[in-house]
């Protein structure tokens, strides 16, 4: 039987960090043939995520995702990384899923395949013309992972390879709680000794004083590590973690962060307690997804309801999505700028705001979830985070680049701020 020679699909590099780009190419196709490039990932929770783009091979029978236009699918246009950031759960999946890596010691495996024709659905029932596997890592080679459980603090510390010493980072996620290591693993892969802090859920925090000292102790654990440069430790927070970062920067008399990265955060807290449920202002959308952004709007004039950000003495980078449906982050950023200006501290502040980006601004190329499940007071609800897929993906890519440049500038002393990353 004479069988046809299949096309060859390649992903370069085949193994990469999650924030690195790749080039997906197909060769040996008949010229001018319509094909579908497809990505498939089985998450640690056993859900399937996929993305696809419709292409036409050129006169030499090749398709290059980085150079060619996708005419349809989960992304369109010239999008080198579209097969990753436009992923969503396959039809029939459970509702409200969010893709988050738990075990950073093994890579995310993504199957990239090419199908004949412009396929819209039913990829699982067809045989691809060719497929290949690519590994996406949060952990670079040589990065050390150390479980921390001391002085009441729980978390995981990631140390870059080499003798050090390194700048440090305290890395805090949002109100969902738990221990998520992936951003710290990635930061360590970029040269920062980063502690992913195990986070309580909002309801667990009983008093402001206890919360405060927990984070101060965590910061000191990083600062006192023999491979960390003690006066170059920064704070990185998202959502509630962002609020914590700002709080520590403004109010702590014990620690002095060198700089802060605050993603999708704010400066509001009523009466010193991190509780943000004023239920009468809670809205839901047509799909019964909770929208929390207006709970604390308008931004109060009352200074006791917000952090005194005028007391901050270190550079701050605020990264927000203008379509954030969970927290009024842009309004907060505006008010924070106003307060810092009044205190003569405006030169410390850098604000980046992204149109049509939502609340969950994560490292680049991770899929966007406009709404996902969230456990609130022991009950599972669906929260609307906001954002449209393509602008949100662009925001993740652009903000990460800005974040790394900001950290490089303030934690690694650079001779030339414009040096290539």
């Amino acid at each position, binding site marked *: 039987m004479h069988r046809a*020679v299949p096309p060859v699909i390649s992903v370069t590099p085949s*193994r990469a960090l999650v924030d690195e780009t790749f080039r997906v190419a197909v060769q040996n196709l008949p010229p001018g043939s319509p094909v579908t490039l497809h990505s498939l990932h089985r998450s640690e929770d056993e859900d399937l995520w996929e993305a696809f783009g419709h292409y036409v091979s050129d006169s030499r029978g090749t398709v290059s995702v980085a150079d060619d236009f996708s005419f349809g699918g989960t992304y369109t246009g010239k999008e080198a990384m579209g097969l990753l950031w436009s992923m969503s759960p396959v039809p029939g999946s459970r509702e409200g899923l969010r893709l988050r890596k738990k075990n950073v010691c093994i890579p995310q495996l993504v199957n990239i395949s090419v199908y004949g024709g412009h396929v819209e659905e039913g990829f699982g029932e067809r045989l691809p013309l060719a497929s290949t596997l690519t590994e996406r890592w949060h952990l670079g*080679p040589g990065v050390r992972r150390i479980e921390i459980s001391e002085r009441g603090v729980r978390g995981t510390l990631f140390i870059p390879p080499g003798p050090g*010493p390194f700048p440090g980072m305290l890395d805090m996620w949002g109100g969902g709680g738990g221990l998520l290591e992936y951003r710290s693993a990635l930061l360590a892969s970029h040269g920062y000794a980063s502690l992913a802090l195990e986070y309580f859920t909002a309801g667990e925090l009983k008093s402001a004083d206890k919360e405060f000292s927990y984070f101060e102790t965590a910061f000191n654990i990083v600062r006192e590590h023999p491979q960390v440069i003690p006066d170059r430790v920064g704070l990185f927070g998202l959502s509630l973690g962002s609020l914590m970062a700002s709080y520590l920067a403004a109010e702590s008399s014990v620690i002095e962060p060198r700089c802060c990265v605050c993603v999708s955060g704010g400066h509001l807290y009523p009466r010193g307690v991190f509780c943000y449920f004023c239920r009468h202002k809670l809205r839901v959308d047509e799909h019964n997804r909770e929208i929390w952004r207006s709970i604390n709007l308008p931004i109060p004039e009352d200074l006791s309801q917000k952090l005194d950000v005028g007391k901050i003495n270190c550079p701050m980078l605020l990264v927000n999505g203008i379509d954030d449906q969970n927290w009024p982050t842009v309004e907060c950023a505006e008010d924070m700028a106003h307060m810092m200006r009044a205190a003569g501290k405006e030169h410390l502040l850098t604000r980046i705001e992204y149109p049509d980006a939502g609340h969950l601004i994560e490292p680049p190329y991770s899929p966007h979830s406009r709404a996902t499940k969230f456990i609130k007071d022991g009950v599972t609800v669906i929260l609307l985070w906001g954002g449209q897929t393509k602008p949100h993906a662009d925001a993740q890519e652009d903000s990460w680049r800005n974040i790394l440049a900001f950290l490089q500038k303030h934690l690694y002393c*650079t001779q030339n701020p414009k040096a290539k990353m």
Partner: protein
Amino acid sequence: MDRKRCCVKLSVHPSRGLMDEKFTVLVQNVLPGFQLTVYAFYKCEGGYSWEAFAHYTASATGAVNVSEDPSRGGTYSGVEPMGLMWSLRPVPGSKSGLRMRKMNVQTPMEVTISVYQGHLTEGFVDQVPLAAVVVERWYMAPGVRRIPITEGGLTATLFLPSGPGPFPGLLDLWGGGGKLVEYRAALLASHGIAAMALDYLTPQITKETGKMVDYEYFEAAYRVLEQHPQILGSRIAMLGLSFGTSVTLRMAVYSQVIKLRCAVCISGSHVQPIDGSVAQIMTSFNDNADKTRFNEEQHVIWRDLLMPIPTDASLKVDVGRLRCPLLLVVGEDDQNWPSYESAMDMKEMMQRAGNEHLLTVLSYPNAGHLIEPPFTPSARASAFKTISNTPQTVMVLWGGEPVAHSVAQEDSWRKTLVFLRVNLYGGSQPGAAASSHL
């Protein structure tokens, strides 16, 4: 140590790559004009330590880019993007005659790349580097499947590329040292070819019977490929190095079973008694053992055993009868086989027979015998254990000057992949692909 000093940034991209992929080593955040040494360290499977290093001076922007900047000295000089890999050598005080070969292809080679202050040539272990990173170098791309083959009395490993296939196939033969050496086949599978590494000198069956294998063994290996549901039976190639070339040429011309789409022969010869068994090829070499020479260091030179190239047609494979494209890769400083002279004779034979259009010769000045996939060190001489009833270890001179040899490896591998791609993936008829692509 001054903990307040500016932190040097060292990065290698990609941090996880295939063995034949280049990387970029970048040093940043040093003062302009700063003198530094970039250092590579690797502990091989045998437990030996290897190192390479190069001296650089930082640019006006306080950076060093190994791919673009010249090394002023070290184990390599000039602009050499991959010098830190191919110039690796055993650390001072090591055992002599070492050769770097990865036998376990399922784990990566882990190389530590560091940067030291100043232009150092020794004592790296006693100094603390400014920064260090780890780089992984893989023979197997993600998704490549490794399948041990023992059916039909074979001692082999099949590497299937990822995906449904079907894929072109390839029989991969090493040389007179024997053993089951998998890394080249693993790399070929990472490039879309279902490649089988075949142990044909020290297979289980030879260990049990004491007899060397013959035509049937290679034909059985070919059949495994031909009948495999994920392999295209009409698109099978053979690749041989050194003695593997002898086998490849014999099978390509004389086997009634093996029908090759194309063949690649590295550092070998067509000179062999064509009547008789494969084992008799070996003994014919031994018959000329008195032509063995030695250099000043008493390293063994075996290239004369087959010289002069005979004119008698019964003493060489009749390459005029070849019906498939043939790629010959030879090093002009090969001290182990007269591969260049053999290539020239094969060319002449094919010209007379009228099938010269099938032939491509890649000939590299100052390259030696062991032309391997790129970016690993080559040895001008190394310890070689002979395959015989009374095996002995001798220091064999392979030849080759390091820079020229590494150029030969990089260039020939790239062209070999193109040759295989064109002939195995392209065209509806074998031989239709023009060798002008190279």
